[in-house]
């Protein structure tokens, strides 16, 4: 399906959705902010009660008139720095918070019964918020991390986010480096294809692995409908954990789009938000955050043989839908689905094949235990079985380049086939149909100072599994300690099978917030 055809079609769908949503709102349920004006009391009248600690036990409060439309106490308070609640002083122009954390991840050396340090570092995060004004505010987060991450021991500096918001009537505009997350499912979101993840970062907090990208995000609020538009002009790839590379194999210069107007990502999402249900349809056009693997170069040489792999970005478009609602007061229900169609995928090992992903989840609280269970499925269109991964014999690369052309050709095919298989594993497309289940359980006790939780995922089709048990203990309001593990496994020919011993680890973290 060509880009020229799809985009106008999607625009039409979105406009139809707008019309439908407004009709539903008009004829059915009350919109979230379309309530009836309060009875009595009048408008523009306000009574204030302050000095709570000094007033007599009971007394009548003075009535004050507040200008209609002016920022109220709620808005003023949320603009203020912590500690200013209730204070008469204006909010500080800048609110600085953050955390310091120390982490150690210990796992097993692949193939050897011996422990090794997988990651160990200290990190400081500084979060700056400007005072919220009626027309906007600003936000920035910088992280500075030093230590061992994967095989690298160095200092990592990351301006994770830095953006300004403008509130212009019904339009909210955010410009700058930002993280955008879409989808209503838990853990895995088929519609979330905007900003990337860095899976090399080890942290008990899932959000720590998200990576920002520069761009613009705008909302047009026409309650109960909200239109969201995203524009990301530059490409930032998702990063995968380091894996063992065979002899003579290395990653070379990646093939990513440059920062030009032809390579931007554009996306739109239409939200319908009613009291009883919220849903959205979305469309993404641009480069997929997770690139594939292509053969950069293959050098047969007795002295300096090499196989250079190029991480290569590809373009796709994704149409998505998600919803959430509650069934009485018993269970919350969430669903999400996305159809992804890469461009020119045939014959390109670095490009995913079209697929349909769908998720349906339920959550409920049993006493003090919260449980979220979810089913996820994936159907790959035009699926082709890749591999299996061939045995690699490094010495073949050391043959004389002038000798054995048929053998070299055969070997090149083997390498290309292996890369196609690896890409298929990365894209989670090793089976035509896949069935996954996830479960998240958390028990909170000791007056919410102790949390015991676990996240589990099983892919019944590929036999991969992952579990992340975690215990968190709040030593004080500003100090929390975590111990836990991230353990995954799978058969050979799967991504977890490839990375399990490299990534599986137990960890301890101490985090102080300020």
């Amino acid at each position, binding site marked *: 399906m060509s880009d020229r055809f799809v985009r106008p079609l999607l625009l039409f769908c979105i406009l139809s959705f707008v019309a439908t949503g407004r009709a539903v709102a008009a004829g059915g349920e009350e919109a979230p902010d379309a309530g009836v004006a309060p009875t009595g*009391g009048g408008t523009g009248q306000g009574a204030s009660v302050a000095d*709570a600690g000094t007033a007599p036990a009971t007394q009548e409060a003075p009535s004050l008139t507040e200008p209609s439309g002016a920022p109220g106490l709620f808005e003023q308070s949320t603009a203020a720095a912590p500690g200013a609640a209730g204070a008469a002083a204006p909010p500080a122009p800048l609110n600085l918070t953050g955390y310091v954390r120390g982490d150690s991840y210990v796992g097993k050396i692949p193939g050897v019964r011996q422990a090794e340090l997988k990651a160990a570092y200290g990190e400081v995060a500084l979060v700056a918020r400007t005072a919220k004004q009626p027309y906007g505010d600003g936000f920035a987060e910088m992280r500075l991390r030093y230590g061992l991450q994967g095989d690298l021991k160095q200092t990592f500096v990351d301006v994770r986010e830095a953006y300004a918001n403008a509130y212009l009537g019904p339009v909210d505009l955010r410009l700058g480096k930002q993280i955008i997350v879409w989808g209503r499912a838990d853990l895995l979101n088929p519609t979330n294809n905007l900003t990337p993840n860095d899976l090399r970062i080890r942290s008990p907090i899932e959000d720590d692995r998200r990576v920002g990208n520069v761009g613009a995000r705008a909302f047009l609020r026409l309650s109960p409908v909200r239109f969201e538009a995203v524009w990301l002009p530059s490409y930032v790839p998702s990063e995968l954990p380091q894996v063992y590379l065979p002899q003579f194999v290395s990653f070379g210069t990646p093939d990513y789009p440059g920062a030009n107007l032809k390579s931007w990502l554009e996306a739109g999402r239409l939200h319908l938000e009613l*009291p009883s249900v919220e849903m959205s349809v979305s469309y993404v056009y641009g480069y997929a955050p997770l690139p594939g693997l292509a053969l950069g170069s293959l050098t047969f040489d007795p002295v300096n043989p090499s196989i250079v792999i190029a991480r290569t970005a590809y373009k796709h478009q994704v149409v998505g839908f998600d919803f959430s609602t509650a069934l009485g*007061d018993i269970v919350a229900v969430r669903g999400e689905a996305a159809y992804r169609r890469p461009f020119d995928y045939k014959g390109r090992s670095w490009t995913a094949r079209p697929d349909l992903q769908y998720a349906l989840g339920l959550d409920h609280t049993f006493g003090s235990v919260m449980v979220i269970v979810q089913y996820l499925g994936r159907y790959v269109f035009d699926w082709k079985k890749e591999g299996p991964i061939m045995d690699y014999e490094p010495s073949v690369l050391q043959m004389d380049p002038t000798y054995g052309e048929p053998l070299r050709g055969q070997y090149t095919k083997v390498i290309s086939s292996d890369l196609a298989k690896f890409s298929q594993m990365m894209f989670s497309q090793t089976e035509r149909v896949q069935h996954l289940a996830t479960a998240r359980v958390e028990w909170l006790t000791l007056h919410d100072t102790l949390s015991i939780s676990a996240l589990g995922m099983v892919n019944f089709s590929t036999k991969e599994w992952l579990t992340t048990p*975690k215990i968190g203990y709040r030593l004080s309001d500003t100090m929390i300690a975590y111990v836990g593990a991230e353990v995954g496994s799978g058969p050979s020919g799967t991504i977890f099978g490839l990375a399990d011993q490299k990534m599986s680890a137990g960890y301890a973290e101490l985090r102080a917030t300020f």
Partner: protein
Amino acid sequence: MRTNRLTRQVLPFFFTVCTGGVLLPQAAHAEAALSARDIMEKVATTRKLDGSESTIKMTLIDEKGGKRERELASATKLFDGGKTEKRVFRFLSPADVQGTGFLVFDYEAKPDDAWIYLPAMRKTRRILSSQSGQQFMGSQFTYGDLNTPALDDYTYTLVKEEPCAGGESCYVVDTAPKNKETATADGYSRRTYWVSKSKFVPMKILHYGPDGKLLKELIANDVKLLDAKKKRYRSLRNEMINKQNGQRSVFEFTKMTFTPNTKDEYFTPTYIERG
């Protein structure tokens, strides 16, 4: 992982302490020959405020005197002629929960709709409002302590009338759950209310555990009249003392305004996502 903790911590608080529940008084003049049920109906049915905005400090005090504090901002507004109360709520501190937002539509006749925005998750999630019987935010309060109980689920006995705190004269009303399910959900075998005769404000509540022993005591102070026209009051300081383990929790409205013209846009998922 934070989702559930915050959900359970905050929702019950959000449901009641900010705006309603048994702690929220109503304005009414003492009337003769009121039954126990009449008294509790007045406490429950005329408590709502057309609109309000407030800042709150919550202090959790352990048996050794150690304190943990939370600061919050909230806004409420009545819709549908008072049948629906919408509440929005946001953490101001501590830093690790700053920006967390809650939105609740509290209906009279059906389960509430509720959403949470967690900065760490970067999206608004619908959540269930049924957290009854659970402690919230690690405090001594439970959802059942703070929410307005369904009147038909309890029996009421007017025990006596006597002076109570603040120079008030109070009705003393015993309430007991009608069935085992309600008792189990509440975690109490009975409760005794001291209700101000002039304002129909619960000034003190004793909570008895399933074994019949005194478990907790609620003390409400600093009662203010916020809507003079409708005579709606609120107690601005509420302290729950666990009589068995010595721990206490205090909710204080550090500032509150009666604002019928509270902006409608506060009560939308979009607004809580602004962080």
